[in-house]
């Protein structure tokens, strides 16, 4: 196998070993075990080893399995959309904005619609920040306005208009049945209807958000798990400076 054609690694190159865990509406017995094995076989696994069956009650069972896949991936052919602006720390971002934009950037953030969980927006915006990275409120270059949770899209856009915002920052944390997609789509549609879409940067974030998904939904950028205030701040600073320098 060439180096860029890969397969899961257990303890030997190319062994294709994977760890799988799932539940089925079956009893935790020989029939259930066979059902789990057949399911994995249908997916295409070989050498299926169901190593744990746990009775979940009410006719359900939980399985943990190891199995081998013959599937391969060619990493040379992968193209992903990622935010590719360099990441600067707070001081560097502040200095960059002073030099390249020469004014404060207004960011209005919220956790919109049904979502009541501010963990994400707070991690990016609050003074304190998260994991040793200060939030946008502490940056000199940002006028950061955090509207908190369960903010209707209409209110967010209205406030952004009133503040003459440069950036709208939306967080979606807890989601079920893809409600985050519906919420994010609704915001963009409203923004377009109100002719705000092109006046501001629209950025979304959350554990189920990727840059690629964000672009697909009509946003400028998306930040998922493992990204911090520094990623968001750098992206905003560099993108707005680039826009401002365009003739």
């Amino acid at each position, binding site marked *: 196998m060439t180096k860029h054609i890969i397969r899961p690694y257990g303890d030997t190159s190319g062994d294709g070993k994977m760890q799988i*865990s799932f539940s089925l509406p079956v009893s935790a017995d020989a029939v259930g075990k066979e059902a789990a094995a057949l399911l994995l076989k249908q997916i295409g696994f070989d050498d299926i080893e169901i190593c744990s069956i*746990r009775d*979940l009650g009410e006719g359900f069972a*939980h399985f943990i399995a190891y199995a081998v896949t013959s599937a391969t991936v060619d990493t040379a052919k992968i193209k992903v959309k990622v935010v590719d602006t360099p990441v600067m720390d707070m001081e560097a971002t502040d200095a960059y904005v002073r030099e390249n934009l020469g004014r404060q950037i207004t960011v209005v953030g919220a956790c919109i619609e*049904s*979502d*009541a969980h501010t963990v994400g927006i707070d991690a990016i915006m609050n003074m304190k920040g998260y994991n040793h990275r200060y939030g946008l409120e502490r940056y000199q270059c940002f006028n950061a306005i955090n509207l908190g949770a369960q903010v209707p899209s209409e209110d967010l856009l209205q406030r952004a208009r009133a503040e003459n915002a440069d950036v709208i920052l939306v967080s979606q944390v807890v*989601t079920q*049945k893809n409600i985050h997609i519906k919420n994010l789509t609704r915001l963009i549609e409203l923004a377009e209807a109100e002719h705000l879409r092109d006046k501001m940067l629209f950025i979304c974030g959350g554990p189920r958000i990727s840059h690629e998904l964000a672009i697909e939904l009509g946003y400028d950028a998306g930040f998922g*798990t493992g990204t911090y205030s520094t990623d968001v701040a750098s992206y905003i600073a560099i993108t707005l400076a680039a826009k401002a320098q365009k003739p």
Partner: protein
Amino acid sequence: MLKLDIDPGLTTRARSAAARITQSFTWLFDDYSSLAIERTVLRLLGIDGALPDGKPLPNVIVDHLLSKKALAQGAAIPVANAMLARNLTAQGVADAVGKGELDLTAIPQAPSDQLFAVLDDLSSRMLTHILAQRETREAQFAKFGPRRQPAIYVIVATGNIHEDVVQAKAAASEGADIIAVIRSTAQSLLDYVPYGATTVGFGGTYATQENFRIMRAALDEISEVERRYISLTNYASGLCMPEIAAMGAIERLDLMLNDAMYGILFRDINPKRTLLDQYFSRMINAYAGIEIQTGEDNYLTTSDAVEKAYTVTASQLLNEQFALQSGVKPEKMGLGHAYEIDPGLPNSFAYELAHALLTKELFPDSPVKYMPPTKFASGNIFKTHLMDAMFNFIGQLTHQGVQLLGMMTEAIHTPHLADRSLAIENARYIFTAVQDLDASLCLAPDSFVNRRANQVLAEAVEFLERVAGEGLFQAMAQGEFAEIKRPENGGKGLDGVFRKDARYFNPFLDKLKQELGL
């Protein structure tokens, strides 16, 4: 015996400051009511149901009275008056108003002794029912034995009450003691309680009286099978706090999330509205024998768990004093705290031990509600499972009242069936493994844990004394709580607060005060 060496002078000062803060609201509790309180009175008088467009009848009547500028006397008297004049039941009156066939303000007022007699009869009947529910619960615990400590508390959150039932029964069969039905995330800001069974919602389904009834019936069934009384809980918070407390009392919920200040700080509900609503809600909870649970964990998801540990202690003390004002007994106060410490911090476990012991020792009779790691839970489910084990270790070691189990998929989705099962397995293993370990341990007198607990308490005292000096509303307006500024006349629901006039009458407020010795 694992025990802190707490400065008793600090404890006294902390309680006295908290009492000074909470006792300065008699003007609000005595002279004001809210739309939610009036709707609660109507529900307790036996009015239920909704219009075809979904608007609940209690809202229809309260809005009707409000539009006729006739709410200052409360909703009870106009309804009783219409019952007498038209020879209708309370529900009959509500139906007629709902159809637009009856104007409650166009009926001549009957003599007050007749009105009071009608309301006395109806309120006695409802209070008798609620008392019977309390006795049923007590009989069940007597029959099957008391709840384990810490009790195993898990959530169901499918968004469909019928699906929730399946998951709740599965969880009970694996060892859960308390089932929390998570409600739809947007419900706290609805100024009405939806009607009937619901199969929709996000992150949960609606708290409705029918959903309460369905889940309680299912848990009663599984309690018989498991020979263990399985408790049910939901949220009495948001703009309909007292209505939901009443529904919980009627349908025998056993615990309810009910924090005196949570709505103000974390949902931007008006401070006056919130304090007023919690005052009446907690009386209903107290009479129904419902254990309240408070939301101190929220302070730590917003702020740092070490730096702001004192805000948890301060909020616990305020919640305690507010609850006492409503007649809640200490053994029914499930004050909250949470294991939200940064797992990368050296000695994070020692910090948590200090915080957990401090809570336990400040509130020895409280079935403290201990919340799991969420802020530092990540997509690495294996790491989160391990953090949950450390959390369970502290819960058993310090004998917390209720362990709200952490889920390894906390940061990803509402729990799958297997996630909940693995969480229960984790808790049961740890609880058994360290069951009586605390009896063999003691803390060195000048140890880190002792110093830390005293430091947090001292910070809480300093904070509470400052707030007592400036007043709670003033302190909230300045952002002293949870780093969020909440002005007295800001937030949602202020227009639902009104001043009572001299004729105002709420039969339940008077009777509950009497029953609770307030």
